[in-house]
């Protein structure tokens, strides 16, 4: 189990406020750029190979690997071994020293198979240092799915070397007002293929994924009265209702599935005071976790499902708290500043990312779940808000107003590789990073 390493976090814990003057980066990822990959041009079983497709596949795998932050891709001009896979069937292992001696850890070789029903890509991943085959696998898709397959292969390469799949083929749900209304959209983790997931022209907010990667829970006013929770299912047109057993006249918002996908945590107002509840999907088995006249909102599960982090202003200003999944053992974990919100638990359980107000704008910080170590992660004179962890825990997605309007950005948890994913169309907010496709 890999853990993030907090390099100067302990130092910073004793120096709260005044975040802007300090270096923003304190967390390093020990796995960052540990490996080098050589990717061959794949063989093609057609009589006349599709050169553009073969090139596109190699480039797709390469750029997805590069974005994984775990791999560096070796320029093919440095290859001593063959640039192109001859054909995968019956081929002996590669001559490993030819690859290891140019610095490669991984060799990716494969064959593209065109068949009447579509496209198949079979590939092998080698650890050329130990000269061991780590994976033999085949993907199927439509002829237009070369990019999709390239991302899946790159994620497999990352998994073969680190034990956790890469995130190139995961998706990010978010809210955009690009149509003039706030609707839910889904895009690939590299910002490509933006799809409208709702188009009801009401107000839609707070997307969150089910662990199966095929469902998105969101908050909507589409019934016309109070907001309540709905469920989008991949490939299904109509959204489903959640909490159908619950009174429609009560506002309900911000639902999140537990790690098993069975129970929801959500916010429901009791006599005008928002409280945190959990229940089964249809609202049965409901448990009220908070009972306070203050605001209690923004529940986010720990990855083991045993605890929740949330926001309460019971002490006079919104602050981050942690409690057991039955509502017991409530502990406040932020004490600096007067506005700490949007907590999200990291996939390895070691950290909680949250947004904090600094002066007139917002930065993203992380803390351990006991509140002992705190460190700024994303800082800028303009606001950065609503963090969401990548499934591998190496990245954060967030919304930022650094270009004026809000857009979705991603950044490595080491503070590097900041990239903007949306732009030019409306305000884009509330990112929710979906699980790795291997989980689907």
């Amino acid at each position, binding site marked *: 189990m890999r853990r993030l390493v907090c390099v100067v976090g302990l130092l910073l814990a004793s120096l709260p406020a005044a975040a802007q003057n300090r270096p923003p980066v304190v967390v390093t990822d020990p796995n960052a750029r540990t490996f080098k990959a050589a990717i061959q041009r794949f063989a093609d079983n057609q009589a006349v190979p599709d050169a553009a497709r073969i090139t596109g596949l190699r480039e797709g795998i390469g750029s997805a690997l590069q974005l994984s932050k775990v791999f560096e891709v070796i320029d093919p001009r440095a290859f001593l071994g063959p640039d192109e896979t001859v054909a995968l069937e019956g081929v002996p292992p590669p001559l490993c020293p030819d690859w290891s001696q140019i610095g490669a850890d991984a060799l990716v070789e494969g064959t593209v198979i065109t068949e009447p029903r579509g496209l198949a890509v079979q590939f092998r991943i080698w650890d050329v240092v130990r000269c061991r085959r780590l994976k033999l696998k085949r993907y199927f898709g439509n002829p237009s799915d070369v990019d999709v397959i390239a991302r899946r292969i790159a994620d497999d390469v990352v998994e073969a070397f680190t034990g956790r799949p890469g995130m190139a083929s995961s998706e990010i749900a978010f809210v955009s007002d690009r149509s003039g*209304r706030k609707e839910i959209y889904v895009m690939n983790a590299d910002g490509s293929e933006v799809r409208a997931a709702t188009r009801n022209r009401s107000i839609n907010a707070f997307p969150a994924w089910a662990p199966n990667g095929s469902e998105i829970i969101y908050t909507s006013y589409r019934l016309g009265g109070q907001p309540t929770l709905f469920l989008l299912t991949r490939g299904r047109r109509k959204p489903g209702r959640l909490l159908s057993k619950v009174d429609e006249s009560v506002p309900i918002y911000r639902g999140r599935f537990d790690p098993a996908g069975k129970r929801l945590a959500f916010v429901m107002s009791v006599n005008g005071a928002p409280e945190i509840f959990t229940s089964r999907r249809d609202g049965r088995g409901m448990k009220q976790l908070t009972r306070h006249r203050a605001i209690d909102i923004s529940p986010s599960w720990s990855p083991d499902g045993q605890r929740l982090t949330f926001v309460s202003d019971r002490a006079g200003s919104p602050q981050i708290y942690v409690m057991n999944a039955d509502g017991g053992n409530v502990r406040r974990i932020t004490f600096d500043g007067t506005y700490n919100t949007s907590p999200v638990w990291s996939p390895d359980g070691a950290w909680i990312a949250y947004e904090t107000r600094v002066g007139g704008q917002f930065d993203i910080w992380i803390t351990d779940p006991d509140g002992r170590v705190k460190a700024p992660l994303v800082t800028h004179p303009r606001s950065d808000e609503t963090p969401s962890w990548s499934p591998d825990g190496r990245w954060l997605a967030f919304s930022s107003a650094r270009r004026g309007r809000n857009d979705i950005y991603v950044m490595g948890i080491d503070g590097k590789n900041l990239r903007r994913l949306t732009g030019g169309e409306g305000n884009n907010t509330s990112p929710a990073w979906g699980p790795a496709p291997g*989980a689907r």
Partner: protein
Amino acid sequence: MMIRNSTGGMRLLMVAVLALGLACSSDEGPDAESARGGSTGSTGWDDPVTGQDMDGDIAGRGPEGAAAARRMGLKTVYFDYDRSAIREDGRAALRANYEILRGRPDVRVELQGNCDERGSAEYNFALGERRAKAVRDYLVRLGVSPNQLTTVSFGEENPSVVGHSESAWSRNRRVDFAVLP
């Protein structure tokens, strides 16, 4: 992590072995998987339903309620940043609104709480609710029947002025009145 636990994955595996008939020289066969993660060819999230144009609508509420409130002279109440306490100008507005509502016991109004765009959208849902409730409680204390009043929060989702400066924000921190049908 393998997808073979799903029946779709199994089927694809069989398709792989049968239709492609590719032999593999190695000790075991390849793992086989649909590139789109078991779904059909599409990316699976496109909402094909095009919503009807309902300009002037707010979250399923037609423009009539707000227009009726304006005709009756019901005033919007404004708030300080991050606060739900009713200011002096708000108390004056609410006393005037009370006089109007007292004469129209047949009219029911929705109090719509709103926030400016700054800060957590989730917290702003709650803050908008708190503002709407503060207005409701104030009107009830003045003597309006609770049965005439309902509340809703739109958080920061329904600004009346688009902009990123205090002049826009100050007009978005508000509770609007809308007459219910």
